[in-house]
């Protein structure tokens, strides 16, 4: 079962995990990835604006989710991604994968994150020191995605 949710509202990481784990069908393993608004000492930001292309985002994440479920034999997969204005330490994205054994859950969630980073239509603009800047794409994200090619 695949669930894809795009929303402006904040979500509660733990509540989402518990909803995901309910009636888990005797699965042995769940991996939850939570992406947070990063704001580290020396690279602190005030806010993050996430722009997205709604129709394509829903379509791209659904296709990606189906691919992940099939490739890693997942029992259940949920992708939640926010858009709009976010503050430091708020959750941006949560990917949860359920499977019989642990490696499939790890790989499923990791695969979804790596492909999502480069192929799902979201763009980040950071406000730091009162100045707004679009976040640049990182070539390491291309490498991370490409390692799943086979």
């Amino acid at each position, binding site marked *: 079962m695949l669930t894809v949710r795009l929303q402006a509202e904040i979500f509660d990481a733990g509540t989402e995990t518990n909803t995901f784990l309910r009636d888990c069908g005797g699965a042995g393993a769940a991996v939850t990835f939570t992406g947070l608004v990063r704001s580290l000492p020396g690279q602190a930001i005030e806010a993050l604006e996430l722009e997205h*292309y709604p129709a*394509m985002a829903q379509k*791209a994440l659904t296709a990606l989710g189906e691919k992940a479920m099939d490739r890693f034999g997942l029992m259940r997969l949920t992708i939640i991604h926010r858009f709009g204005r976010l503050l430091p330490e708020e959750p*941006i994205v949560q990917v949860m994968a359920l499977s019989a054994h642990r490696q499939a859950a790890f790989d499923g969630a990791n695969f979804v994150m790596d492909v999502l*980073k*480069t*192929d799902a239509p979201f763009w980040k603009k950071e406000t730091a020191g009162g100045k707004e800047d*679009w976040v*640049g794409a990182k070539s390491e994200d291309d490498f991370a995605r490409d390692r799943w090619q086979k």
Partner: protein
Amino acid sequence: MKILYFAWLRERLNRGEETIDPPADIATVSDLMDWLAASDEGIDLVFENRDLIRVAVDDELVEHDETIAGAETVAFFPPMTGG
């Protein structure tokens, strides 16, 4: 045909959407980009480094040599930075 712009393309052009009617000989994404750039100085500028522009035709990511025949929506945007 609806054209969409996202992120800094949208900001620099000061619009996120427009409707256009390209001539019949505009067959591919690349043709469309040439035609748009020729018709508008602002677009010419944001399309300056073509390799950095990603394109979706009817909500599907495509390469620049893809056909636009029958397309309802073509979207232009920078490399994605979600997650």
